[in-house]
């Protein structure tokens, strides 16, 4: 097991898959010479050349759409949208063409592409560079949604996504690129649709993904010190979703805390709550609790950004209250 940064994990996954399969290529804004806004494609151009690592113009719709077309025509593109916030420009191409062509065409095509993007807050870069829009995509049929929290999962899931035949939105997190973690040696693949139990527990279930899964894992440890046994689930894939693991845990704990960095209203965690309600209603000992971002554009000012986004303290407090039956 070697240590690597999340950003290296991404890069290694890309490099390994590009070595394995000549159809895999990378394109996006500043991915080649610059090596990516968050350095996640550094060195790829040097190894694979400008043909397979392509800097594009600032044309998000064309980037996503060209990936769709290239995928349908036999390649396996990994395109990058620099900030999740700019997916707003690529929605039609990714969701209406990429996600639907297979079904609309009677199952007679596949669109094997990965759209990498990077979301989340934490850098005081305000409302158009801090969003978490995964809920839009779990709501969009035909596309998968993956959001790894650790370097190992980033690597293993990205490799799996590249090999999968579906259009996949692969969501990285800007505050994770500089996080280090162990990565299994050799070929490391993580399956889609399998959550990771970051900590086992029996008093409550905390469910999250992406950066917040790490925060929740820390909270879980602190809760343990207080004598509260939290099961911490890191979803990793939001679609396909590992509903079984969630339900098993809920049946055990009867209490659920959902944590997400996206705006609260119609957050993806509402879907999780709905599934728990549908399949494990009788096991619930208390209302499901969510800790999500405030329903506001992410403010720039550090005091407001912190107030808008879930932080360890607020998650901890919510967990304690829930565990103690105060909800």
């Amino acid at each position: 097991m070697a240590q690597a940064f999340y950003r290296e994990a991404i890069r290694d996954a890309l490099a390994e898959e590009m070595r394995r399969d000549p159809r895999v290529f990378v394109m996006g804004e500043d991915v080649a010479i610059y090596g990516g806004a968050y350095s996640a494609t550094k060195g790829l151009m040097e190894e694979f050349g400008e043909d397979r690592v392509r800097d594009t113009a600032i044309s998000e719709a064309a980037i996503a759409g060209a990936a769709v077309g290239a995928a349908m025509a036999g390649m396996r593109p990994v395109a990058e949208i620099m900030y999740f916030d700019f997916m707003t420009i690529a929605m039609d191409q990714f969701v209406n063409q990429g996600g639907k062509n297979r079904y609309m065409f009677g199952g007679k095509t596949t669109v094997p592409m990965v759209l990498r993007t990077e979301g989340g807050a934490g850098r005081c870069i305000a409302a158009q560079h801090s969003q978490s829009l995964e809920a839009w995509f779990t709501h969009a049929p035909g596309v998968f949604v993956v959001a790894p929290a650790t370097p190992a999962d980033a690597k293993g899931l990205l490799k799996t996504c590249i090999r999968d035949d579906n259009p996949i939105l692969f969501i990285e997190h800007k505050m994770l690129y500089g996080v280090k973690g162990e990565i299994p040696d050799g070929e490391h693949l993580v399956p889609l649709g399998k959550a990771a139990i970051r900590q086992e527990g029996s008093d409550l279930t905390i469910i999250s993904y992406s950066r917040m899964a790490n925060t929740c894992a820390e909270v879980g440890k602190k809760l343990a010190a207080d004598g509260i046994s939290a099961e911490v689930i890191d979803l990793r894939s939001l679609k396909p979703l590992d509903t079984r693991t969630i339900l098993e845990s809920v049946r055990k704990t009867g209490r659920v805390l959902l944590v997400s960095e996206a705006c609260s209203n119609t957050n993806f965690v509402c879907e999780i709550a709905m599934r728990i309600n549908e399949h494990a209603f009788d096991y619930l000992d208390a209302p499901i609790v969510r800790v999500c971002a405030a329903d506001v554009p992410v403010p720039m000012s550090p005091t407001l950004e912190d107030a808008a986004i879930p932080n360890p303290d607020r998650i901890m407090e919510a967990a304690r209250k829930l565990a103690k039956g105060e909800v």
Partner: protein
Amino acid sequence: MAMRDPVQGKVGRKDDMRFLLKQMMQIRAFEDKVFELLARDILKGASHVYAGQEAVAVGAMQAITDKDLITSTHRGHGHCLARGGTLKLMLAELCGKETGYCRGRGGSMHIADVNAGNLGATGIVAGNIPVATGAALACKMRNQGQVVLCFFGDGASNNGTFHESLNMAGVWKLPIVYIIENNLYGMSVSVKRACAVQDIATRSSAYAMDGVIVDGQRVLDVQATVAEAVKHAREGKGPMVVEAKTYRYRGHSRSDPRVYRTKEEEAYWHDHDPIKLFRELLAAQKVMTEAEMDAVEAEVDQEMAEAEKFTLDESAYPPAEAVFEDVYAGWIQGKYGLEPIQK
């Protein structure tokens, strides 16, 4: 970069000319049938019919080979037929039958035959321009000499994807020919009121590309002009724009009273009907007799009747239970959400 002159097409071997004529007649017959079935409420949904524009698809498709690719539009029946589609499978698709090209999932606006190189129609105006451009990128990277024909309308040329895609193709010198079917209107809005320039091909200069304007009613001119553009693209000289001036006869939808245009204008274009013009040419050059051409028409009518029978009498709707199939490759909806399909 400059505007090129269109290439004048010459009459060729009789068989080939017969083929062109027949394809145009097939499209016309198909669209007439579509209109009829819409009126009888047998055909559901929206169908944008290609009648009037036949020479564009038929001529252009002659300029490419089997290994090449095309993308189509919401007005895609003509492209599908000319790319080798059969009336049967097309009509079945429009009627939502399991036997159609897309097993009834797509209908008129999403007719596709990906394996035959038709990457499909789209309901999103200008939605396939990036897709076509990406396909051309694949062609370039795979390096097997393929080119892409990307069809779209005058209206589509005002959408942002047009700009982003043509710029991408221009920078990367992709093997693609953008074929603008300028039929003077995007739905009810004339090019005059929607588009700052009237000759859309001139926009190619913004992407350091050659453009050319061709008479879209003359199938041989379209063929020859597109053939030159395809050659240009295939030789690695980069993308090109071909604007075909043409006209759609029907309203945008069945209920469209066409108040945005005049009867005179319609009459002018009917006078320049692509099938009529081609018949006159073939007769004048003594390639085919009127009787021979009428015989083609009769053959087409017969085929159309068979297609109708196939669709209405011999084809079933997809079963309701199939609704979750083929959303994802390798995954299917289960009790708790998506599950991998067990092989």
